[in-house]
C-alpha cells in the first residue's frame, strides 16, 4: 500500500508564518481570521492537491441561510477556470511545504484567497484516501521507471531580453521579430491591450549543457541578424525596465516533475542565482518568479519559471544550464532545504542577499562533492567563484559584447 505523508514542517509553522508564506508567494490568506457565517452568497473551491496537481476540485456555494450546494468542477480544456483554481491551490500547498493537502480558496477581486488548509486530506473519507493512494502509487511507479531507465534529462529554455534606446525608452521587439521562431517576441497585457515588447530566444533543446549553450548562441545570432537597428541596447536580468519583468524559463523533459525536484531547484538553483541578482531584479516577485513556479508543457515535460533572464551573461547562462542539469539528475542526493526557514524564505522574496549568502556555502559544497559534479564543473565553477566573491550583476548594461554579438553592422 502506498504511504501518503507530508513533511513535518507545516505542523511546526505558526499560523502567522503560514499566512506570511502564502502572502509572500502572492496569495491572499484569511487563515488567521475567525470566520463567521455572513449573510452572503459566496462561492468557495475545495481542492484536493497531491504532488503538484489537483485530484479533485469542488465548488461549494454558501447562501445567506447556510444552505450548501456542492458541484464538481471538471478539467475541461476549454475553460481556464479549472486551470486557475488548480494553479492557485498547488501554489498554496507548495508554499506551505505540503505535498498533499485540501486547500479551500475563494476567488477574490485580487486573485485567490486561501481560507483553510487540511494537511491530512486522506483522512476525510475512504474514497479520498483511495484517490491519494492511487496518485502516490502512480508517482512512485513513474519515479522507479525513471531511475531504471537511467535517462539523462533534456533541457531547453526560452529566456527573454529587452531592446532599449540610449535614453532607456523601450522599443517593442515585435518591430523586428515574429511571434514564432528561434528568436521571437512575447506579449504582455497593459491596460487591456496586448503589446509585444519582449524578445525571446528559443534554442533547440539538448541533454548536453555545452550543446544547449551552442544552440543559444545560434539563437542569439539569428536575433542579431533580424534586429537590424544596431543602436539599440539589449538588456536582460530580472527587471531592467521598471514594470517589465523578464524570465529565464528552463524546460525539462525526460525527468518526472516531483515535489522534491522542485524544492531542490528552488534551493540549489534559484537561491544562488538570487544572490547574484541586481538589486532591482527582486521587483518581479511574487507576481513572477515565485518559488516553485512551474508549468506542465503539452510535450510532457515542464518548465521551471522561477529564474530571472539569465541572458545577463554567458557565465550565468552556462552556470544555470549546468546546475539545472546536475540538479535534475542528482536531486535525490541534494538534501539541504534552507528555504524551509522562515527568514530565508522571506529573504528570497525581499532580495536580501546578505541573508541568503549566510546559507549559500553548504549548498554549494554539497553540489561540488557529488561525483557527477566533475562533468559540469567547467560551467559551474565560475558562477560559484562569483558567489564567493560577493558580486552582483548589473542589468543596465548591454549584453551584446559578452555574447560576441557585433555592435556595428
Amino acid at each position: 500500500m502506498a504511504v501518503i505523508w507530508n513533511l513535518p514542517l507545516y505542523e511546526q509553522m505558526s499560523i502567522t508564518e503560514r499566512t506570511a508564506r502564502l502572502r509572500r508567494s502572492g496569495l491572499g490568506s484569511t487563515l488567521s481570521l475567525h470566520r463567521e457565517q455572513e449573510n452572503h452568497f459566496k462561492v468557495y473551491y475545495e481542492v484536493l492537491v497531491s504532488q503538484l496537481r489537483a485530484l479533485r476540485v469542488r465548488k461549494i456555494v454558501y447562501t445567506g441561510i447556510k444552505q450548501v450546494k456542492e458541484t464538481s468542477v471538471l478539467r475541461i480544456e476549454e475553460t481556464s477556470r479549472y486551470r486557475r483554481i488548480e494553479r492557485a491551490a498547488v501554489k498554496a500547498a507548495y508554499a506551505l511545504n505540503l505535498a498533499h493537502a485540501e486547500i479551500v480558496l475563494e476567488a477574490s477581486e485580487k486573485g485567490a484567497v486561501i481560507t483553510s488548509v487540511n494537511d491530512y486530506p486522506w483522512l476525510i473519507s475512504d474514497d479520498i484516501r483511495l484517490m491519494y493512494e492511487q496518485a502516490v502509487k502512480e508517482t512512485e511507479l513513474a519515479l522507479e521507471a525513471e531511475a531504471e531507465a537511467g535517462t539523462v534529462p533534456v533541457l531547453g529554455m526560452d529566456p527573454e531580453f529587452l531592446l532599449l534606446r540610449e535614453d532607456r525608452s523601450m522599443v517593442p521587439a515585435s518591430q523586428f521579430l515574429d511571434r514564432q521562431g528561434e528568436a521571437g517576441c512575447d506579449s504582455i497585457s497593459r491596460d487591456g491591450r496586448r503589446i509585444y515588447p519582449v524578445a525571446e530566444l528559443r534554442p533547440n533543446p539538448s541533454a548536453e549543457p555545452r550543446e544547449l549553450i551552442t544552440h543559444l548562441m545560434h539563437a542569439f545570432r539569428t536575433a542579431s541578424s533580424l534586429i537590424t537597428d544596431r543602436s539599440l541596447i539589449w538588456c536582460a536580468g530580472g527587471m531592467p525596465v521598471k514594470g517589465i519583468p523578464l524570465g529565464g524559463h528552463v524546460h525539462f523533459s525526460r525527468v518526472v516533475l516531483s515535489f522534491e525536484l522542485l524544492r531542490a531547484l528552488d534551493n540549489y538553483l534559484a537561491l544562488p542565482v538570487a544572490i547574484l541578482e541586481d538589486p532591482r531584479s527582486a521587483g518581479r516577485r511574487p507576481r513572477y518568479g515565485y518559488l516553485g513556479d512551474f508549468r506542465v508543457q503539452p510535450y510532457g515535460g515542464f518548465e521551471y519559471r522561477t529564474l530571472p533572464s539569465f541572458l545577463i551573461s554567458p557565465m550565468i547562462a552556462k552556470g544555470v544550464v549546468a546546475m539545472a542539469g546536475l540538479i535534475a539528475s542528482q536531486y535525490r542526493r541534494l538534501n539541504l532545504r534552507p528555504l524551509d526557514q522562515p527568514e530565508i524564505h522571506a529573504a528570497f522574496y525581499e532580495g536580501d542577499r546578505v541573508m541568503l549568502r549566510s546559507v549559500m556555502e553548504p549548498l554549494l559544497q554539497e553540489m561540488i562533492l557529488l561525483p557527477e559534479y566533475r562533468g559540469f564543473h567547467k560551467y559551474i565553477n565560475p558562477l560559484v567563484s562569483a558567489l564567493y566573491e560577493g558580486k552582483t550583476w548589473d542589468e543596465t548594461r548591454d549584453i551584446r559584447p559578452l555574447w560576441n554579438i557585433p555592435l556595428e553592422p
Partner: protein
Amino acid sequence: MSLGHKQQCREIITKAICGKGRKFSTVTHTVTPPHNPTSILGAWIINHEYEAVAAGDGIEVIGTYDINIWYSYDQNSQTDVAKETVSYVENVPLSYLDPKHRASTVEVSAESTQEPSCVEASVSSNGESVLIRVEREFAVELIAETKVNVIVSPHGCGDDDKDYDFGTVEADFDELDPDSLDDEL
C-alpha cells in the same frame, strides 16, 4: 532532398483565422431590490446573449444577461427574487494577429468559454442594494483573407510520397564555441 529548381512556390489568398484572443475577467454589479435585503439566499445569471464586433486592435464582445437574486427582508421574515438585466462591453485583446490580413475582409466571432457565473453576492454597506461579483471568459477569433505561401509539387499528388525538405537550413553550429565566451558576471 533540398528544394530543387523544379519546385515552385505560390502565394495564395485564402480565408483564415488571422487573430485569436482570450480574456477572463471579474466584474461587480450593483442591484437594488425593492426591499432592503437582510440576507442573500441565492444568486444566478441567466439569458446570456452576446455578439462580437471588431474594435481597433482588439475585438469587443457586447452582451446582456439577467441577474436574479433571491433574498430575504424584514429580518428574514419574507423573501423575494430581484431581477435585473445588465449590459456590458468587454474588450478582448488579440494575442496573435497576422499582419498580412486584408482589413476589408475581417469577420469576428466570440465564444463564451465559461458562462458568466456569480461567485459572490453581499449586501452593500448602506443596506439597500446587493453587490454581485461575476466571472466571465471569452475566446475570440478574427477571420480574414490573407496571403499564404505554398510549395507546388510538379509531380502532382501521386502515391509516390516524396520526402521534401522544406528548406530547414542545416544549422551551422561548428563555429559557435561556448568556451570562447568571457566568464564575466
